[in-house]
């Protein structure tokens, strides 16, 4: 089983990388881009088929390590 975790800055937190890339895209002529937010993508291979256990553990990993709840939020998928 694979877990794919997306970590992003909270909406309320300014994203300096996102705003810089947004300006670059506009410069390149992509005028339809309204905004850009940049985050992290983490992929785990898991040696188990127990989805419930994996979900609990991934939540723990996010709360303890992958995510700083002061500035970030996350979502994940099990595949």
């Amino acid at each position, binding site marked *: 089983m694979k877990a794919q975790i997306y970590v992003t800055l909270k909406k309320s937190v*300014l994203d*300096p*990388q996102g705003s*810089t890339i947004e300006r670059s895209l506009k410069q390149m002529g992509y005028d339809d881009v309204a905004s850009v937010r940049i985050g992290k993508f983490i992929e785990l291979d898991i040696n188990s088929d127990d989805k419930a256990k994996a979900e609990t553990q991934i939540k723990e990993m996010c709360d303890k*390590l*992958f995510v700083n709840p002061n*500035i970030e939020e996350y979502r994940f998928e099990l595949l």
Partner: protein
Amino acid sequence: MKNKKIGVVVFPGSNCDYDCYTAAKNIIGCNVDYIWHKDSNPGEFDAIIIPGGFSYGDYLRCGAVARLSPVMDVVAEHAKKGKLVIGICNGFQILCEAGLLPGALYMNKKLNFICEYTNIKVEQTESPFTSLCKKGQVLNIPIAHGEGQYTARPEVLDMLENENRIAFRYCTAEGDVTEEANPNGSRKNIAGILNESGNVLGMMPHPERAVDKKLGSTDGKLIIRAIGEWIV
């Protein structure tokens, strides 16, 4: 001071450990020991310095991996006893990640790594670290960071303000706290904050780099000497 001891924590990637060691040794004149980050029983210290650098290469987030090192349990225990902890730059980031200080530090507003002298205003003089400064005094102390933008939830920022826990703010040479004087976009121009009981300080500027005229400023001595006077 011979019976007093300061510990300087060393992580893989710390790079201001020697500067902190030398500043503490020369200015305070007490014993100073390095504490390797894997050491879970290094003995007792009167104050602990968490120096700057790039612990664990800043992987994931600055300080996110370092805060899991065994030594951080020692630091937390030490702080719980009311003894002094100062985290400088990466040390400040680690203290926030460890939950010993509120809020977080993330990429500078303009994304660039900034290495320059800044002016910081001393906002309170009741703490063990600021007791030798005058309220409103402007200190000239350098910063060197890419991720020093301090942020916290609005209610946390209000709490820091109301509880007099903002130690330093970026300001102009005249002491005006303005947006232009804010190098990294920190909320409320915050350069350093204290924990609830005032014995843990985190600051982005490097006082240990401002201890000799040849380095451009000696203002950092005020903070280091204050630590020495407190632990006597």
